């Protein structure tokens, strides 16, 4: 790394060449306030409070967007800077509803934090809050433009990170607002409900649709048997809400907490991740060896990606694995296999999924296939943030809970199931099982390092004893384009498909950084959560899906074999082209 020497408040520092003043100061332990900058995004330079002085210049520059120049001395804090920043914060507050106590972001709001840091006791300017209607058109997200401070993060996320373009700046000047183009509602827009906007919003302007009351009502209802599943990524993140280090594996505590909250059965989506590998892996092997479908096969477990594909790449429908997502598979077997085993009427089972994802709320009602059991396979999806809130409301000291185990017969999981939560994880899990299916041998070293890591697009080849299986992985919706272009290009030219198997996850880093995860997700936190997931994998006794004893059991007792008629009925689905804008 090339470095340069600069000064911050007169003190010398050696910093990365071309880094921004903001980043350099942060490394030096100096916090420059900002409301719009986010490490996932290009500097947008909207909020106006990160201004600093360059010694010798009368101007103030934005620390977020200005690269360091060797030799310069940056003044980050002085009375004049404080005055300017404070005035801008006061102006921002004068347009912002003073309803912190009843806001979804109370105590996690970045504006609140900044206001506290500046010690603002009164707002000197006339209050002027524009009351705009909430957009509650999707089941996933609530968009409350009244609280929007127009930092632009959500629009940038939606456009740059996700390439969805559901959110745009409308009008100008004081009338500027962020909303879907032409002022349509979110559910009429190309929105894929990934929720990254809500994860990046510094205030309470866009947040997950809180459905915790529905869970509480189900628990209270004596006739309902509440069966809960938790997704892989939840276990390494929920602890953050209780002061635990990101990446802490809290699987056993979550099981315990869910029981304390009144759940009747606690399962794990990781079980269904293993089930997904059995189905999807078999499907892949058949496409490769028997030519039962087009190649490459593309993963379908991410509902935001599925939605995106149906809107932006409907020509990829034949490439999509027909396997449902683990959550939907878990729901389907909960209300059939488990219901039978436990002797409970499926109509009385209330199936809840704790997910790192807001799109999952949409997925459970996307079409009739989500009622493969005859009733809703999953009745309710709660995000990690909602789970944390319920635990807090119940007064549970989460960090100090003892570990418990999940319930049988659909609670045990392999290491392959748990890595579904990170980018490359579905691919790695599939490789571990597909290798066995193709070669009839077990993979020696189960760690497939080629598919790991935070690179936006990862490409590689895996040797199946002489058969080269070419794979590609994309995470962050905007990264999918180059791979889709390659597929289309090969298709048009009539040449060999460039890949056999492609994994796509809508969110950067995979589900560990999903739109429903605890706030403050940046790459350093992603890295810790990912490390947690891989640790969970390494600590697992069973690390391949096909070796999970409960998986072996369910095929033996119930499903028969992968891609069986019953498996198709319960665990597979189909896709349709959807318009970008509903009319």
């Amino acid at each position: 790394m090339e470095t340069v020497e600069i000064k911050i408040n007169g003190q010398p520092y050696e910093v990365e060449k071309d880094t921004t003043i903001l980043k350099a100061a942060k490394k030096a332990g100096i916090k420059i306030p900002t409301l719009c900058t986010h490490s996932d995004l290009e500097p947008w330079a909207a909020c106006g409070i990160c201004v600093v002085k360059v010694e010798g210049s009368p101007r103030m520059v934005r620390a977020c967007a200005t690269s360091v120049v060797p030799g310069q001395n940056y003044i980050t804090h002085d009375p004049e800077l404080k005055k300017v920043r404070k005035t801008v914060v006061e102006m921002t507050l004068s347009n912002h509803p003073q309803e912190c106590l009843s806001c979804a972001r109370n105590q996690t709001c970045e504006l609140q934090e900044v206001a506290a840091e500046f010690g603002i006791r009164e707002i000197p300017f006339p209050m002027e809050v524009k009351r705009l209607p909430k957009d509650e058109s999707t089941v996933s997200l609530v968009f409350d433009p009244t609280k929007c401070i127009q930092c632009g993060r959500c629009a940038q996320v939606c456009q740059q990170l996700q390439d969805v373009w559901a959110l745009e700046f409308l009008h100008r000047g004081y009338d500027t607002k962020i909303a879907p183009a032409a002022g349509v509602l979110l559910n009429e827009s190309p929105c894929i409900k990934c929720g990254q906007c809500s994860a990046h919003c510094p205030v309470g302007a866009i947040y997950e649709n809180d459905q915790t009351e529905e869970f509480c009502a189900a628990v209270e209802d004596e006739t309902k048997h509440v069966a809960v599943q938790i997704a892989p990524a939840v276990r390494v993140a929920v602890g953050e809400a209780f002061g635990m280090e990101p990446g802490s594996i809290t699987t056993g505590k979550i099981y315990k907490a869910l029981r304390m909250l009144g759940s009747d059965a606690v399962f794990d989506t990781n079980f269904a991740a293993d089930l997904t590998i059995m189905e999807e892996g078999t499907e892949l092997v058949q496409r490769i060896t028997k030519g039962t479908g087009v190649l490459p096969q593309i993963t379908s477990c991410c509902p935001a990606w599925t939605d995106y594909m149906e809107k932006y790449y409907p020509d990829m429908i034949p490439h999509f694995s027909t396997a449902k997502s683990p959550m939907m598979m878990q729901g389907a077997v909960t209300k059939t296999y488990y219901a039978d085993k436990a002797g409970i009427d499926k109509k009385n089972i209330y199936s809840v999924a704790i997910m790192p994802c807001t799109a999952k709320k949409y997925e459970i009602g996307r079409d009739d296939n989500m009622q493969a059991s005859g009733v809703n396979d999953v009745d309710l999806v709660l995000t990690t943030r909602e789970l944390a809130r319920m635990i807090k409301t119940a007064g549970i000291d989460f960090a100090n809970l003892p570990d418990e185990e999940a319930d049988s017969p659909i609670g045990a999981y392999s290491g392959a199931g748990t890595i579904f939560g990170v980018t490359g994880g579905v691919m790695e899990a599939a490789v571990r099982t597909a290798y066995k299916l193709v070669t009839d041998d077990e993979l020696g070293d189960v760690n497939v390092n080629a598919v790991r890591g935070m690179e936006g697009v990862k490409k590689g080849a895996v040797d199946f004893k002489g058969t080269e299986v070419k794979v590609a992985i994309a995470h962050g919706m905007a990264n999918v384009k180059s791979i889709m272009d390659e597929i289309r290009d090969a298709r048009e030219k009539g040449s060999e498909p460039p890949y056999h198997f492609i994994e796509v996850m809508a969110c950067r880093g995979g589900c560990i950084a999903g739109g429903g995860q605890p706030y403050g997700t940046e790459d350093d936190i992603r890295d810790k959560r990912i490390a947690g997931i891989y640790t969970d994998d390494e600590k697992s006794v069973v690390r391949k899906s096909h070796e999970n004893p409960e998986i072996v059991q369910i095929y033996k007792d119930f499903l028969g074999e992968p891609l069986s008629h019953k498996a198709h009925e319960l665990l597979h689905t189909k896709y349709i082209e959807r318009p970008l804008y509903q009319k």
Partner: protein
Amino acid sequence: MAVKNYILVCGGTACESSKGDDIFNNLLKEAEAQGVADDVQIVKTGCFGFCEKGPIVKVLPEQAFYVEVKPEDAGEIISETVIKGRMVDRILYKPEKGAKGDAFDIDNIEFYQKQYRIVLRNCGLINPEDIDEYIARDGYAALEKCLFDITPDQIIEELKVSGLRGRGGAGFPTWMKWNFTKQVESDQKYIVCNADEGDPGAYMDRSTLEGDPHSILEAMTIAGICVGANMGAIYIRAEYPLAIERLETAMAQAREYGLLGKDILGSGFDFDIELRLGAGAFVCGEETALLASIEGKRGMPIPKPPFPAVKGLFAEPTVINNVETYANIPAILTKGGEWFAKIGTEKSKGTKVFALTGKIKNSGLVEVPMGTTLREIVFEIGGGIPNGKKFKAVQTGGPSGGVITDKYLDTPIDFDNLISIGSMMGSGGMIVMDEDDCIVDVNRFYMDFCVEESCGKCAPCRIGTKKLMGYLDRFTQGKGEVEDIQKMKDIGEAMKKAALCGLGQTAPNPILSSLEHFGHEYMEHIEEGKCAAGKCKDLVHYKIIAEKCIGCTVCARKCPVNCIEGERKKPHVIDQEKCIKCGACFEGCKFDAIIVS
């Protein structure tokens, strides 16, 4: 047969909208009808600048300078001036009312006396739709020189010697801008012309483009040669249809002549230009927003650096200059940088075009050497304030500048002096105010513009403009409080320092500078609820003095909202609740019975 007379008809937007087209067509018809069609060449030129007196028609060689011409004057112009060589006194320019008209060399008219025309050198002289006329006035000579005789480094050197600074407002040395782009290695570079003129009342760029479009094409091509770019774009407001039309004609002619397009003049150098029409957002005059708009994105500024010179249009190195800057380039390269550097002040060379408007006798476009004083512009070129009113202040730099009071009238105008007296050059708007103007009301006008035109991206500008507007509104309604002044200053200072682009950083300037010079007027509004100029309607009350009113009923009949009541021959009364303060009663009363308070 040789042409005997030339008739130059102003073809600028302002004169065209005053039936300039009809005048032109009538002259053609009359010349034909009176049998002199072959003796006279009738040319539609660019703007003469003397817009106050438009439409303007000039007949050569008689030097007949006809003003406020009407289409029906065409017959007489032909029969008298062209055929008989006599002046049509009725429409002949006269320095003062009642003075005798005479044939004037344009330079002898006081409006033009102190002017020095480089940018507007061809406006009012040539037919902008005829490339030959531009060429006849040394047009494209600089391009030829740059293609064959001098190197790009020499171009830079010549610009450096000339001292030319960007005319868009910031006054950045043009040679440095070009040199930055020249030094960046890149396969693709762009030349962009900022013709998104948006200051209220400013139209120097429009007139230049309408009157001399080839000068811009030539300059952009030279910039292309200099920095190694083959593509250019002119970003122009769609509200300038005539300028667009003239540019399109000029580009077509230049391509036909091999002066634009592939292999220019056989040199092997390719350069072509595209027009990009802007939808009229003021912020798109800010260069990064302009480039975003060309790229098809929402016109919003981005932080600088990187500057466009290094990373501009489509992230490629881009020279972006304003129209007036480009218009200087061919002249500098033909006559030499040293010639240019002799004009102007030490740090601001050359001339500046101003759009002189407001309370001024001779409104119009004036081009003066840098260093000319405001007094010379307002009182000599502009002819002073009409109707014997008292001068109050001049606003330069449009909604981004400040007010200049009589105290500074003798300051030589250049980039640095204007800043030192609390205003700025801006793109060259110059609005004169007299004693009837209310400073709070004027600032409301500017701030209203900034509120409308803020792009909404950065909080200091988006919220700051609105807050300032709110305070001004309250002042004009008599609802202000003394402490509001300090709050406005706090907001203004925060905007200056923390707004993202020039629009937001300068938007509080008119308020901050007028608070300094006319603080008492603000205080009058706040503390006494009084608007001395009578512009703030909520503070103005019309009253009928019963003793003076004879009950003639004129006021009651003039009142558009029927709020004056009273019996005939008895004193009338104005219903203050209903009064809309239009002043019709005041104007109509012949007995001075109505007062304004």
